[in-house]
């Protein structure tokens, strides 16, 4: 299978299938084509990864189609701006439409030799997009059934849902294959469209409002891209990424990169553009799992990974790092404050993306390694967590962590999925911890004047991450209060396939972390920084330190096995908790108080509400973000 065909499949098939699911009303047919497409995409992405890189241009008619679709899209955004009475959307859409028309028809600058360019970075993103994305699509098949059942919908709107969901996969694929800045911008805006339409899917007032917020912030990124096209064209007379990357850094070119970074910050929800991702949590959970954790937000990170080698050593690069670091540390603490499960995961996503962007901004071989490792493992783990959270939400009927107390007892399998997912986000020997470890190494290796403040932010953010995941995970293991029967954990097949599949993948890639580094990270690292990480004896060796992967896994297994053996051999009678002797017989975890009243013990989560004032911190965050964005352009023009 040659790469050209695979690329066509990865971009074209989702578009076709999306249209099909919009038109077809039969649930079984939709399940069939979505599942089949998922399989095809997974296979094709692996084949593409195994094949070599390629650069080419498809038939010119495709270019015309892209142009037409782009104008249609912008026109639609104008319409949305008008319909939702949003001057921001209207203005931003116009700010794109007019310049693009000028660029295309007057300047005629959109011609690029090789519109498509695929290398190691593209195939890494393709793997993430298609494997995690396909699993989420399968998951969505069950989720949307239950979701619409809960909402008592008469007429199913799943056709519309799957249209945008699957279309997003195609758009993301197109995004990472584009060498032409214009094509990249086009696919970028398609993802903005899908994001907007999916957030407002349920049609509530809140959903519509949050969707508009996501839309205008996304459009800011779009404007950034359009301006970058002008800057790039002005600097090197080309909008091919390969040309922009290879050119000598002039001020105009750097300004172009800064504009692309701005777009990246909007897409990856970094300060000051973080509020849209939090607002996006009103959408059905597959949207959160796909767009807002493991796939679409990676587009911003991809953009930065792509341009990083070209801005190496510039103040711009360090300001980007600062933006990521500040976002990481502040959102990590804000996550402590959240009691709504999806908001915790949302803040966690923003924070981890911030950490990745910090690493990209530091722009050394070591930090690039950290960024790639974190990106890879984060996408898998976060997708898993969001999907698990969605299942729990549907079965328990609540998104609030308070209602998830003792989940492990009530829904053992799903509870286990959530717990392993959380453990894999911050504890050894899992991949995310490896990434964080490399990140600390990378930040500590940076020149002190920049490195020290960033190190302080990273260590504080890391400690906060441990705090909010450990407390949540512990809360899930609390024994149930009543002798309530365990909920019948009859998970539907799509749930089972997607949850256990991704769980298995999560564990597999963490166990095979050295392989991931060797086969996935190293090629990209070599191309960008002419370096490589060695993996002797199945450990990850950075030269001045090493991560013993398999010994730690062996240790983990040994501890679990020996612990279980000791527990089984010693056994023990179950005893009620210590309540000062006031236990009420027969009623678990209930105590007798004054006037002989019986009170059940209630425990709540830890949110540090008096210490963390979310509203004021959020205001500061927006302010800090704006300052950093301003600084980003300041260092370019001075």
């Amino acid at each position, binding site marked *: 299978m040659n790469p050209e065909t695979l690329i066509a499949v990865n971009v074209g098939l989702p578009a076709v299938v999306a249209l099909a699911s919009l038109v077809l009303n039969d649930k079984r047919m939709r399940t069939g084509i979505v599942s089949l497409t998922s399989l095809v995409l997974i296979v094709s992405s692996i084949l593409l990864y195994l094949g070599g890189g390629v650069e080419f241009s498809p038939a010119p008619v495709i270019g015309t189609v892209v142009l037409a679709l782009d104008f249609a899209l912008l026109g639609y955004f104008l319409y949305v701006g008008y319909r939702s009475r949003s001057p921001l959307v209207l203005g931003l859409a116009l700010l794109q439409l007019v310049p693009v028309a000028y660029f295309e028809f007057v300047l005629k600058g959109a011609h690029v030799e090789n519109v498509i360019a695929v290398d190691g970075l593209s195939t890494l993103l393709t793997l993430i997009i298609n494997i995690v994305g396909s699993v989420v699509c399968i998951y969505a098949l069950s989720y949307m059934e239950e979701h619409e059942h809960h909402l008592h919908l008469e007429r199913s709107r799943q056709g519309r849902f799957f249209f945008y969901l699957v279309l997003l996969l195609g758009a993301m694929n197109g995004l990472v294959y584009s060498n032409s800045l214009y094509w990249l911008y086009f696919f970028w805006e398609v993802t903005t469209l899908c994001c907007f339409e999916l957030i407002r899917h349920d049609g509530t007032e809140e959903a519509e409002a949050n969707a508009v917020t996501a839309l205008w912030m996304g459009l800011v990124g779009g404007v950034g891209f359009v301006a970058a096209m002008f800057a790039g064209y002005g600097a090197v007379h080309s909008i091919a990424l390969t040309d922009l990357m290879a050119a000598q850094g002039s001020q105009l070119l750097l300004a172009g990169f800064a504009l692309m970074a701005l777009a990246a910050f909007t897409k990856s929800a970094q300060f000051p553009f973080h509020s849209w991702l939090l607002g996006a949590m009103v959408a059905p959970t597959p949207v959160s799992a796909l767009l807002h954790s493991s796939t679409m937000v990676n587009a911003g990170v991809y953009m930065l990974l792509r341009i990083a080698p070209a801005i190496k050593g510039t103040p711009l690069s360090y300001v980007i790092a600062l933006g990521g670091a500040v976002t990481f540390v502040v959102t990590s603490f804000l996550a402590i404050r959240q009691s709504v499960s999806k908001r915790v995961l949302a803040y966690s996503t923003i924070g981890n993306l911030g950490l990745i962007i910090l690493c990209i901004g530091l722009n050394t071989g070591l930090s690039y390694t950290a960024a790639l490792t974190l990106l890879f493992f984060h996408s898998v783990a976060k997708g898993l967590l969001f999907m698990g959270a969605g299942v729990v939400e549907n079965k328990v009927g609540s998104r609030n962590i308070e209602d998830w107390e003792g989940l492990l007892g009530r829904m053992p399998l799903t509870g286990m999925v959530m717990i392993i997912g959380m453990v894999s986000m911050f504890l050894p020997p899992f991949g995310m911890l490896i990434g964080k470890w490399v990140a*600390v190494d990378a930040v500590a290796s940076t020149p*002190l004047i920049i490195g020290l403040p960033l190190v302080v932010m990273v260590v504080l953010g890391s400690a906060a991450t441990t705090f909010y995941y450990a407390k949540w995970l512990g809360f899930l293991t609390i024994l149930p209060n009543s002798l309530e029967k365990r909920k019948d954990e009859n998970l539907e097949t799509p749930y089972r396939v997607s949850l256990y599949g991704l769980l298995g993948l999560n564990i597999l890639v963490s166990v095979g972390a050295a392989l991931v580094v060797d086969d996935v990270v190293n090629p990209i690292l070599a191309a960008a920084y002419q370096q490589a990480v060695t993996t002797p004896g199945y450990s990850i060796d950075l030269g001045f330190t090493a991560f013993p992967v398999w010994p730690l896994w062996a240790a983990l297994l040994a501890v679990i096995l020996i612990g279980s053996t000791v527990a089984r051999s010693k056994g023990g009678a179950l005893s009620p908790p210590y309540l000062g002797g006031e236990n009420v017989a027969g009623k678990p975890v209930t105590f007798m108080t004054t006037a002989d009243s019986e009170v059940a013990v209630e425990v709540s989560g830890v949110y540090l509400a008096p*210490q963390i004032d979310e509203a004021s911190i959020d205001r500061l965050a927006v302010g800090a973000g704006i300052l950093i964005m301003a600084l980003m352009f300041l260092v370019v023009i001075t």
Partner: protein
Amino acid sequence: MDAASTLISLGLALATPLMGGVLAGFDRKLTARMQERVGPPLLQPFYDVIKLWAKKPMIASSLQPVLAFGYLGFALVAAGMVTFRQDLLLVLFVTALADVCLTVAALNAKSPYSYLGARREFLSMLSYEPVMLLAYVSVFLVTGSFTVQGVLDYGKPLLLVIPAALVALQLVLVVEMKKSPFDVSGSGHAHQELVRGVYTELSGYTMALVEVGHWAKVATTLMILSLFWAPNPLIGAAVALAMFFVSLVVDNSYPRLTWQRMLRTTWAFGFALILLNLAALALGGVI
């Protein structure tokens, strides 16, 4: 690594509980003497643990014993990582794994005191983890490596170069050993507001496992502290034991304070001291 040094490293790692137990014995004896008492015999902690192991098993849930063993198990893995001269950051993260086992075991039993202890234990972890990470970063900046091997190869005593890290780690040691003023999550004896805090629902063999795990943790931390005078292991051990003794003195001089005070103190002093030290080193051209 040849077979002999591998065996020594392994033996040393497995001996950390014993070392910790002996230290615990000295802890109680010295504390007693500071209070003008006679105090228990030096082997008392071992009698305690053996007695606990022999008690009739009583558990809060089926998950609890596995987690209690996990605490000991991962503490031993962390000890092993030190004795096999691995990365200090990883030692910290593996120790975090042990701590999560303990706190989840405490949360697992729906008990108010245990829950309160777990909550405070999370806050303790929040207070010392960033300071320890920064201390290890300062070790890296001076020696060029995060590993124990790197510190041993450095040649010069770290105490003379980054003394601030040691002071910061003294604060961390007080929190880790659960000594006043920062014994907010649990302690060697009962607290009025907490009862046994994070240890409340442990009993018999699970309590024994956690106690032995705690010994291993303390011994491992002291081994790391002794690295601050790596050229001469005896002086290094003396440094570590001196810090141990300081923890005891502090324990007997201060009442228990709030967790807010604990966070403020460890972060403010920890960060300020280490950053000032690093700034001085940078200005002096050392790093």
